[in-house]
């Protein structure tokens, strides 16, 4: 075919310009040079095709061949995604390491889904059923936690002809469907162009809480299934630990973790740790529900640009099965920088700080792929994709474009504070600056399911923290002695909320996850103590004695009480009451 093969005319870093590709489309994939490097067409000017190359371009020069693939950058979707680790363009890193050694070799490719794995397909649909895009034909047990639904590809329809239990690799035909244009076979694998959202029947407003086991998040700044959140913070403030904690403990059925332009060792950490961590609800290893995408900072920037799209397409695919999926992107700033670098090489007119003018629309477009939806298919099942994006603002400066454009679209903001991090207060989420627009949804949910005092307590605790911030200013000016006795008690309560509730050690087995029930009891305990010391003060106990009760130690250690021993909270409560009564008597 004419124009299927062209030649390189210019190479500048990751940007290659080729000619002779007449008929090629924007965002079509090409193979560049003798090594067959992967690239994508991102600009067309007459017969000049600008290509962003996903691999290092050293050794590439004018005259070398460029071959079209006729297809946009696409992912393979099917059984075998779970437990995989891919690079930004869905090359399986484990297989590459096995076949090509410990360094990434250019131009190498292996199928994203392992063809040697055999899956057992169990049909759900029957011969004669009328089906359309999204309908479930059958299931494959992909991992201990995931039953993989084999669906009719979007846009297809017909009557099921042949179907039956079968085992084989992902290319195995599981059903034949008599469509309006003749019969077609359905295998276990679909391809999807990553830059397009997968279709849904319609989006719905999210209503379900996503529990994370992180006290400051669940209690004060909660997120819902299908929601969006961002975690901006300077380096060292613990963005990655927050992301890891959510990937570990969020009650999503599928987790897609995109390491986008970050550290190699962090991905190794996830890879080594997740198989050993148990999901708190099912007891199975967390890896059994996880897909990893690792495009570390030193890997080519163009593939970094693609990595978030690869991730979100995989997330949407699982959503279509009716699952609730959480996607973590660490960090979206690196993604934006990749766009900036490519844009600079294209000599586009820069917007703010050198970022391309389309930065805002790209970021918004990405987060908009999150949401709670009614999936395509006849059964109206619900699915959800939540996105949690880390942002790494230069110098911690929140006024920079990536933070600002992100804040315009996300509903939850967990602002990390390096001052808290220096004081080793983790998670270093600033409780005065952060917000969640899902608060009301979660409050009414938790009031029903956890305790009717949930939202009342939360509001009280937040008021105490805000009051503390005001009093703190005063203390800095005139000293603690200038405060009234009541205010001293409030300062004490606020300190306990901070240290004994908000502070949570991700590296302590007993503290890393707290159920909503225990979160409630813990906060309730502190508030109870506060009520009691106020009564005690009114009844004549001295401030000093109230602030130095032995029972304080018990409250401090209450966060370590095991989930199956929550009765102990009651005994601590009565200890509080008794010890204060003893003071007054």
């Amino acid at each position, binding site marked *: 075919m004419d124009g299927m093969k062209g030649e390189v*005319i*210019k*190479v*500048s*870093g990751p940007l290659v*310009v080729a000619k002779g590709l007449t008929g090629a489309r924007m965002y079509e994939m090409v193979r560049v040079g003798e090594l067959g490097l992967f690239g994508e067409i991102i600009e067309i000017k007459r017969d000049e095709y600008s290509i962003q190359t996903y691999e*290092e*371009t*050293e*050794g*590439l*020069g*004018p*005259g*070398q061949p460029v071959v079209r693939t006729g297809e946009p950058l696409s992912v393979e979707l099917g059984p075998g995604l779970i437990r995989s*680790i891919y690079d930004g363009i869905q090359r399986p*890193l*484990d297989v590459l*390491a096995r076949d090509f*050694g*410990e*360094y*990434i*070799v250019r131009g190498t490719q292996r199928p994203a889904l392992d063809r040697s794995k055999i899956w057992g397909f169990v049909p759900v649909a029957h011969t004669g059923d009328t089906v359309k895009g999204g309908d479930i034909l059958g299931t494959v047990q992909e991992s201990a936690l995931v039953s993989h639904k084999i669906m009719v590809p979007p846009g297809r329809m017909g009557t099921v002809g042949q179907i039956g239990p079968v085992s084989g690799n992902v290319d195995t035909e599981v059903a034949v469907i008599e469509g309006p244009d003749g019969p077609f076979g359905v295998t276990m694998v679909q391809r999807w162009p990553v830059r397009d959202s997968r279709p849904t029947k319609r989006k719905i407003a999210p209503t379900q809480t996503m529990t994370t086991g992180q006290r400051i998040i669940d209690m004060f700044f909660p997120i819902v299934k299908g929601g969006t959140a961002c975690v901006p913070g*300077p*380096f*060292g403030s613990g963005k990655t630990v927050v992301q890891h904690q959510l990937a570990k403990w969020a009650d999503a059925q599928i987790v897609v973790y995109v390491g986008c*332009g970050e*550290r*190699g*060792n962090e991905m*190794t950490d996830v*890879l*080594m740790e997740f198989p050993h961590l148990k999901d708190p609800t099912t007891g199975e290893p967390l890896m059994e529900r996880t897909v990893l995408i*690792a495009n*570390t*900072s*030193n*890997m080519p920037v163009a593939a970094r640009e693609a990595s978030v799209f690869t991730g979100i397409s995989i997330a949407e695919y699982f959503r279509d099965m009716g699952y609730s999926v959480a996607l973590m992107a660490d960090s979206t700033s*690196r993604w934006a*920088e990749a766009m*900036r*670098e490519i844009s*600079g090489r294209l000599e586009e007119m*820069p917007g703010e*700080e*050198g970022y391309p003018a389309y930065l805002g629309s790209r970021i918004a477009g990405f987060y908009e792929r999150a949401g709670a939806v009614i999936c395509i298919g006849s059964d109206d099942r619900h699915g959800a994709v939540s996105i949690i994006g880390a942002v790494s603002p*230069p*110098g*911690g*400066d929140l006024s920079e474009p990536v933070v600002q454009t992100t804040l315009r679209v996300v509903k939850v903001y967990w602002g990390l504070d*390096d001052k808290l991090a220096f*004081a*080793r207060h983790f998670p270093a989420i600033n409780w005065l600056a952060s917000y969640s627009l899902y608060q009301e949804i979660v409050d009414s949910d938790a009031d029903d399911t956890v305790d009717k005092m949930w939202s009342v307590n939360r509001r009280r605790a937040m008021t105490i923290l805000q009051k503390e911030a005001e009093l703190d200013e005063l*203390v800095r000016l*005139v*000293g603690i002695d200038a405060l009234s006795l009541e205010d001293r008690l409030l300062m004490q309560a606020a300190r306990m909320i901070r*240290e004994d509730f908000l502070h949570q050690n991700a*590296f302590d087995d007993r503290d890393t996850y707290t159920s909503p029930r225990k979160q409630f009891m813990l906060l309730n305990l502190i508030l109870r103590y506060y009520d009691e010391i106020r009564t005690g003060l009114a009844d004549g106990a001295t401030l000093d004695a109230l602030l130095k009760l032995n029972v304080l*130690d018990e409250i401090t250690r209450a966060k370590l009480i095991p989930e199956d021993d929550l009765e102990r909270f009651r005994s601590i409560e009565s200890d509080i009451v008794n010890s204060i009564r003893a003071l007054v008597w």
Partner: protein
Amino acid sequence: MGNIIREYRTVKEISGPLMLVDDVEGVTYGELAEIKMEDGSIRRGRVLEVHGKKAMVQVFEGTRGLSPQDVRVKFLAKGMELGMSIDMLGRVFDGSGRPMDDGPAIIPEKYLNVNGNQINPYARDYPNEFIQTGISTIDLLNTLVRGQKLPLFSGSGLPHSRIAAQIARQATVLKTGEKFAVVFAAMGITFEEAEFFIADFRKTGAIERSVLFINLADDPPIERLTLPRMALTTAEFLAFEKDMHVLVILTDITNYCEALREISAARKEVPGRRGYPGYLYTDLSTIYERAGRIKGKKGSITQIPVLTMPEDDKTHPIPDLTGYITEGQIIILRPLHTQGIYPPVDVLPSLSRLKDKGIGVGKTREDHSDVMNQLYAAYAQGKNARELAVILGESALTEEDVLFVKFSDAFEDRFVRQGEYENRTIEESLRIGWELLGMLPPNLLKRVRDEFIERYYPKSS
């Protein structure tokens, strides 16, 4: 393209460190070039961009004295490579990788491309082996592990070189049968600084196990761009082919970044913050990410990059972007230095991200984590109280605050401060830590588990 030697006399433009060669054929991106001058001397360059018949070449030694009419440019059909040999140990090289001591030429075992390849994240092994540097603020509070990249954030006039040298000197405690090497990459530092390191390595005999790459302040700045890559290629060779534990000291990254900015400006690229190119992060990561361990390999690469923060400003793009890539940072603080405390490590904002997996039972000691957290918390509280006392006077402090102020003073004086040749074991650091915690009543030590208080809290004094 093959082996045809392609020599061109078609230099059309020279601008800054860049040269435009026209009518070229078969030139590729990243290719190495030799630039021959009339007098027979040779400079080297690298292709930064090739467009049709035009190639843009960056000249490492600079373009001073070049004239378009005189020079001949030969493209070598390969990227920048460096010959590798175990005999590089004990030798000193210049910024182009040529020996600059009086030793014999190196006979390479093999040639490696200095840009290296990216380690497949799947093939990485997690760094979790404790390295004892003998410096308490690092070992106990910001633990370094093998395969980590932990920079020193410093400022002009601060003793970062002495600290880096002390780490190189002391971080060599090994299990039997292990091999250790230091690769030292000096970019644009002064003769005196370079001499300080060389003399120190000589004095301690470390030079035998060291490979030094030196580009001094008056050497061509563009060489600074390839120098760290040569150093790291050498480190990779020693670590992953010769099973050595390699410590790489890169100093000073600030000079490296300035060289990068110079090239970027010469290419008229759209600048990012403070004139540094938008790809500074990506570029730095291709240096820093070359630290690590690989599954199934015995060796490791640990990096200590040193950078001087302009105006001690941590939000300057160089420390900022570095901090986003490296696994923590050790911050050197001017006020502590002024007080005469060596090493003036600012404990609170310093951080080692990989410490948690390198400490504890079987690695250091069971109480390490708790002691570390408690020292941090107590020191932070003491410093806060001290600030308060500055505004309100000592009398405004509560009894407890006074105690913490005393603690933090003693902490700086006895824990942070140590001799330049004082090599503390982790047990000694822990002992000093407990002595200091002994100044506080046990009920204030909330971050330490009871069992450890019982076992280690100093009994009556």
